[in-house]
């Protein structure tokens, strides 16, 4: 068994290593026809850029993106600088250098990777999946009897912020940096999944497709790990199945299929304000131009945020979204599960959390109000501030850096819910509802708590569950995502997530069950 695991690990690492070097290898050769296609597609009017590319790039063979990318970006920057100087604003190219390099790379990729997509898929994704499964499946036997299996979590480098954790951290952060800021290095990855993308949407894959596909693969593999680890706990099994379903079907398949059907790309479960660009002008325009389905999406998006989300939170708590449906939550609960213990439980972090998450919500609301104002009045500025630049700031700081790079990249160090706890504006909104008007609570079982601290340690949202449990108080916190792990790890059966009448939800007992009734009455009277 142990041997299978080790072989699996080696196979996985080979897959991962191949995946990691792919961005910088491969050959590109741009021919004149393809370049003209690009000029047409991108409506390029810059003679300077066209000339430079024709001179330096077209019909030349480039080895690796490291040499192609600078050729394109320099050409583009020089051309733009020249046009701006000469005030030829019509000729300025607004596509970024990185995107342009990605486009050229995608169209001009030749050589082994681009010609052997299936094989290369197998050497990266294929080996990764096989290796990971070989590593995970033996746990069915190795973990022994059903029950909570947290042995050794604080002894291992991976899960105790050791060097492996730091390597994973570096890998994840770099991955997100490439994705958001240097997509040209993702071009070779897109080749691997072209066949899959073409079979779904009919189009070749872009780097976001790679991300979406990888997201599903990682979640599926890590969900299998969840199934094995928590096989004694039906709540975890059902919940894991749910997040996996919503990720694969709603976030991945349906939007791709909609594109094939000439409909707008839309993830029906992604609610505003997490889906922060829902009200951006380009999106509204595209929806309004897509006929019936576009209108339906527009109405659905609004109803989802204003009605469905709060009503569901009233009945089930914010868990129905955060740990049953949401994609960010889904990754956190699968890939992130081994790191859940790293969320800080200090009072200080709780303070930071409240300032940050509500700050982001405020930011999102202000930005969207400006957006809508600009949309309806057709003015680009509100009170002298450019709507576009506020949107760009939000997209960069919150959408890319906070949600992506920090949100997932920091899993191995700060725990798996950094974004959900400190940043997600939707979570802040759901949190209000959960805290003040909901049937959900975590019931504390009278006086049974022994203050051991397992619940607090494994709460991914950094809630000091024990602080409530040892006082016999129910846990009613806006940030609780209802993952149910506190209840799963409690050795004394103290915690139960449940939906019940609002009356009796908050139980401020000063003295615990177990002492005689007079004393309790006395304390409660005070």
């Amino acid at each position, binding site marked *: 068994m142990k041997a299978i695991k080790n072989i699996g690990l080696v196979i996985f690492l080979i897959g991962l290593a191949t995946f990691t070097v792919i961005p910088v290898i491969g050959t590109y050769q741009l021919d004149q026809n393809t370049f003209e296609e690009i000029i047409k597609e991108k409506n390029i009017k810059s003679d300077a850029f066209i000339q430079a590319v024709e001179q330096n790039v077209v019909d030349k063979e480039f080895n690796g993106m490291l040499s192609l990318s600078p050729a394109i970006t320099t050409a583009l920057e020089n051309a733009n600088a020249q046009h701006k100087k000469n005030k030829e604003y019509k000729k300025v190219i607004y596509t970024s250098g990185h995107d342009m390099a990605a486009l050229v790379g995608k169209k001009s990729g030749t050589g082994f990777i681009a010609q052997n997509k299936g094989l290369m898929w197998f050497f990266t994704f294929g080996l990764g999946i096989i290796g990971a499964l070989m590593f995970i499946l033996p746990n069915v036997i190795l973990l022994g009897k059903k029950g909570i299996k947290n042995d050794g979590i604080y002894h291992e480098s991976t899960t105790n912020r050791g060097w492996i954790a730091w390597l994973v951290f570096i890998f994840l952060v770099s991955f997100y940096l490439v994705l958001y800021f240097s997509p040209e290095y993702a071009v070779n990855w897109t080749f691997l999944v072209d066949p899959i993308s073409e079979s779904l949407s009919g189009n070749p894959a872009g780097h976001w497709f790679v991300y979406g596909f990888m997201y599903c693969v990682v979640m599926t593999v890590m969900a299998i790990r969840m199934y094995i680890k928590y096989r004694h706990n039906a709540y975890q099994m059902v919940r894991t199945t749910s997040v996996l379903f919503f990720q694969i079907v709603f976030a991945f398949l349906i939007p791709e299929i909609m594109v094939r059907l000439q409909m707008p790309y839309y993830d029906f479960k992604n609610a505003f304000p997490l889906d922060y660009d829902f009200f951006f002008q380009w999106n509204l325009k595209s929806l309004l131009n897509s006929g019936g389905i576009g209108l339906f999406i527009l109405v659905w998006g609004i109803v989802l945020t204003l009605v469905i989300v709060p009503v569901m939170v009233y009945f089930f708590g914010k868990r129905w979204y955060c740990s049953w449906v949401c994609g960010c939550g889904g990754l956190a609960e699968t890939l992130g599960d081994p790191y859940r213990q790293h969320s800080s439980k200090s009072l200080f972090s709780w303070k930071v959390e409240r300032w940050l998450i509500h700050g982001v919500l405020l930011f999102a609301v202000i930005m969207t109000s400006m957006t809508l104002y600009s949309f309806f009045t057709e003015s680009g500025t509100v009170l002298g501030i450019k709507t576009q630049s506020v949107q760009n700031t939000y997209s960069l700081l919150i959408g890319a850096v906070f949600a992506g790079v920090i949100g997932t990249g920091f899993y191995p160090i700060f725990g798996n819910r950094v974004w959900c706890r400190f940043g997600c504006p939707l979570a802040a909104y759901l949190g209000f509802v959960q805290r003040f008007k909901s049937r959900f609570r975590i019931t504390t079982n*009278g006086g049974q708590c*022994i203050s051991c*601290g397992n619940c607090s340690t494994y709460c991914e949202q950094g809630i000091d569950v024990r602080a409530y449990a040892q006082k016999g108080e129910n846990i009613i916190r806006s940030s609780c995502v209802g993952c*149910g792990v506190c209840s799963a790890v409690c050795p004394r059966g103290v915690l139960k997530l449940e939906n019940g009448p609002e009356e009796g939800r908050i139980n401020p007992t000063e003295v615990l069950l*177990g002492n005689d009734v007079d004393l309790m009455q006395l304390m409660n009277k005070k």
Partner: protein
Amino acid sequence: MEHVLIIGNGISGITLARHVRKLSDKQITVISSETDYFFSRTALMYVYMGHMKFEHTQPYENWFWKKNRIHLVKGFVQKVHTSDKKVELSNGTFVAYDKLVIATGSKPNKFGWPGQDLKAVQGLYSKQDLDNLEKYAPNNKQCKRAVIVGGGLIGIEMAEMLRSRKIPVTFLVRETSFWNGVLPAGESQMINEHIAEHHIDLRLNTNLKEILADENGQAKAVVTDKGDTIPCNVVGLTAGVTPNVDFLKDSSIEIGRGVKVNRFLETNISDVYAIGDCAEQHEAIGNRRPIEAVWYTGRMMGETLAQTLCGNPMEYNPGHWFNSAKFLDIEYQTYGWVFSERNKKDYEEHFHWRHAKENICITVAYHKDTKKFLGINTFGVRMRHAIFDRWLTEERDVDYVMQHLKDANFDPEFYSHYEKQIISKYNSVMHTSLSVKKKSWKRIFSKA
């Protein structure tokens, strides 16, 4: 300002300190020799097993004490001078008090076995015990086998700890079946089986005779009363605990096994009190033992005494008995009284149900004439404390309890429910035809 001095920073002493602070402005000092800050003894095992770090066992952040003006002193009290109202620390300093609370907890039993003080022979009680285990049993290369002596709750925790590092464990238990002084036979049998499932070498009906030393004065083997010699590198002594009161021996405070107290938790000396594991009631309360060495009672005594010290004299008056534990993977809860065959009252009758495949079972005790419900033990099923507490107060009969079991179920959502199976077995042994009532929030929240 009145000075409340507390010896011992365990659950009882700390609960007292917190509640005194809530209720008053008194000066509070807590002296303890074990650790700087309060931690949960019950969680020691999880640190060794790698579920938690030691800091996670501390329920309050370090700034908490200063903020709440609870003055912490690390030191060992070696003498109490009740006539001068002073305690003497081992470093020679004296601390004066107006009220003294002894909350010094327990220490592991040692029954005079030859070799009991050797190196690598230890109980599992204190932080130092945890450190020692880490030293002598860091892995299964250095510790090729461990022998645990005494089959109680701490013994099985220690076995689980060692098994988490794949260290072979031999478990010597005096009784003929695990913990059968407390558990009824069916349950005890299920735990015997579960211990075997974890590859622990359980030797029932076996006593320790002697521990043999190697040339460095470290344990190398144990000899049992069956004549077996079992080579090992660590010996765990987990045959119960006794109050930690030796330092009071030549004070005027009355000592039995523990510090003798009345229902107000007062000792024979005025302004001196005792709470927690180290307190011994003159008369046992109800079916309870005079010394209750459990977490909850320590906490409850702390809560009660705080009232008394703050001008609201109050008897320690525990409600219905409850407790919980975990045997490897099996959770155990109990509400009310279910006695083992050995200690069963003559009016006490049991209904027992065990799942055909899973490690799940319950035992319900009732009065054989009146059918009054007396208590329940559950294994692998969680139950709602508040409900059983109320049913006991309301003196429900066992039929009522069986019909309303769904109200009491506290398992996580989506778990399988067994009320139907339980009641059908109940019907067949008791010749009744009851059926299970649906869970009702209204009943759950109604007051007794």
